[in-house]
């Protein structure tokens, strides 16, 4: 084997890398919170300013946090799926209403249905930043100990629920609290 083959071999490695790259999405940013405690927040509820909602309330249960807003088009797309999920009562879903107008948000839920046990009202978006939210919608799976176990970016599809999220939820639900 002569050394003149070296450029060819390096090139082949490059092609393999690029081929793998075709199957990846350079824009998806994974969450650094996987396996870490859910960031705390202390927000008023969307429907009732006097009530406070915070993650510590949900210790002992597995729950989903869905980040949504009335101005978000993709949220409409995943909404029916969320309604279905909420009605099946398999796992409680809480909402984080992100950078929205309170009246608009309440109206949106009234119009399309409310899948959330409660929605936290994050008008300034500070909690969103704390959770590393960079686009809407996003969905988090949090376990009984308040650790974030999964983040889904973008509108939920049935396959996401069936193949990834619900199996994870079931697994976490059967695990004992730490």
């Amino acid at each position, binding site marked *: 084997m*002569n050394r*003149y*083959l070296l*450029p*060819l071999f390096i*090139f*082949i490695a*490059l*092609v393999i*890398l*690029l*081929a*793998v*790259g*075709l*199957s*990846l999405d*350079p*824009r*998806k*940013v*994974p969450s650094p919170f996987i396996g870490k405690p859910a960031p705390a927040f202390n927000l008023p509820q969307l429907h009732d300013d006097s009530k406070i909602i915070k993650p510590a309330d949900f210790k002992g249960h597995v729950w989903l946090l869905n980040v949504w807003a009335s101005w978000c088009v993709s949220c409409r797309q995943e909404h029916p799926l969320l309604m279905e999920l909420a009605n099946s009562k398999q796992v409680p879903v809480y909402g984080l209403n992100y950078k929205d107008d309170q009246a608009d948000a309440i109206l949106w839920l009234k119009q399309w249905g409310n899948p959330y046990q409660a929605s936290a009202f994050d008008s300034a978006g500070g909690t969103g930043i704390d959770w590393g939210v960079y686009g809407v919608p996003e969905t988090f799976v949090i376990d009984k100990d308040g650790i974030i176990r999964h983040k889904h970016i973008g509108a939920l599809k049935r396959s996401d629920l069936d193949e990834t999220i619900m199996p994870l939820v079931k697994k976490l639900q059967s695990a004992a609290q730490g």
Partner: protein
Amino acid sequence: MIPELGNFALILALSMALVQASLPVIGAWKNIPEWIALARPAAWMQLLFILIAFGCLTYTFIVHDFSVAYVAHNSNTQLPLLYRVSAVWGGHEGSLLLWALSLSIWTGAVTLFSRSVPQAMVARVVGVMGMVSVGFLLFMILTSNPFERLFPVPMEGRDLNPLLQDFGLVIHPPMLYMGYVGFSVAFAFAIAAMLGGRLDAAWAKWSRPWTNIAWMFLTLGIALGSWWAYYELGWGGWWFWDPVENASFMPWLMGTALMHSLATTEKRGSFKAWTVLLAIFAFSLSLLGTFLVRSGVLTSVHAFATDPTRGVFILIFLAVVVGGSLLLYAIRAPQIRSASQFDLVSRDTALLFNNVILVVACISILLGTLYPLVVDALGIGKISVGPPYFNSVFIPLTMPLAILVGVGAMMRWKHDEITRLTRKLWPVLLASIVIGIVLMMLYTSEVKVMAVVGIVLALWVTGTTLLGFWDRIKGKGNVLRALGKVPLGFYGMSVAHLGIGVFIVGITLTSLYSTEKDVRLVPGEKYELGGYEFTFKGVTRKKGPNYIAHEGNLHVTKDNKLIAFLQPQKRIYRTQPKPMTEAAIDAGLTRDLFVALGEPLGAENAWSVRLYHKPFIRWIWLGAVFMALGGLLAACDKRYRQQNKRNENKRAVV
């Protein structure tokens, strides 16, 4: 009708390209003169059909034929005529047609200007270029046809991205593509030489002017892109090390190395295998750039709408073309004999050093560009690699090059002495340091070390280049006569190297002494920046052909003398929800004043405004223009136009 005609023309072009890619090459191999002679007519027919297709597409845009999907996605009834034409290459499909057109123009040019090249060689060169054409035409016809119809026909088009509705973006792609594609000529010559078994100084001589012209176009194309980004994107930056910018810069670096290596191969008959490899690399990087921009593998503001199927096609094409050439290289290179002998201190070594630096710089940029992909592919996370990385790697790497550029041009071939060089150069060094420090102290009270280093380096480059030029003409009698006797190639080299000095001044001063400020201004309020006074006169509404705008009005004065009226705009295009900024710039040789309009801030008609003072920023592009001019001069050297048949048949050493 016209779109169908265009589509048909593409298919005919493809068939011509297939002929061009096969018969002449086989003819050269099997010595069939009739097939060798097919190269030129096939190339010209291909050019004709592609011109027809291009014409059809342009016509379709001009008459607003939204039944063609590509037109519907990139045009609009309100779009001014100039941009309807430039929209032809504004999107993915049309830009491929521009690529194919560029390639067929270069091929035509090769058939015209190769009278001193043996027919069999021309046949192979044209054949190889034909193979590349086949790839692009096939890609277009199979996955990205610009003539595809849309049904139902929309009443209105989606519009050309407003960012592209700009003069800079009209000429930037054609220039860039002429550059990218132009490297295919040197590539084709290298492949043809390896196929034919003749790799001598003549081959290098034939390749040089083509490489210089392609390099010139690429230099201009990149400079235009940088200039455009500066005035259009509104944050004063002129280079972001974005993957697509890097995709154009890497072939440029490799092309620069190639130009210098070709010079050595022609003069000294050395480094033949290495020069061949560089020619392959330069064009491969052009193709890689095509892949990166259209496959979606990397995120970029410049990327065309992406589609994995297209990505797969280009990757296969890339693998075949580059893999094939590297395989051919691996087979042929061991047989290539380079006759040369030179000492460690010699121009030969200096040029090798030039090559090492340029190639390492190119590899570094490739590494940085692809690294996020590597990390992602290995599943170990997601990182970003941006300007902080590239700047901290690239600048130290290229400084030795700037130091050596004038020196190398003065060194003797084969053997030189350090003492001789030191004797000549230390006055230049001293002068550069002294003048540099003095100039900086005169220019500003805030003298920064890096600024002094940059200016001294620029002076050194200029000084050594001028000294080299002086050496060339001195002692040759009458100055004017001596100037006349200097070959254009030498002028070209000197001008290009001077361009480097100019460029260094530009980036040094602009990077270190730019000032910017975001301010809230009410009408009548002033702000001082960089020694200039900006007086805000309020905002009015304006109407354009396909947009409405808020137009700010600022008076700029210095020492109470009126310098400029600046009218930055915030435009809302009819077809885009988001507003676009049009900065107002007062351009100058020694500084730019740049104003961008922000947001209305409520009470008292206040607006937020961004002000910039950018010293010597134009020198960056001026330097590039010098470099491009240098390349042009070098290519026009009369040696390339001489019919030197008698030399070629001597010692056809492979």
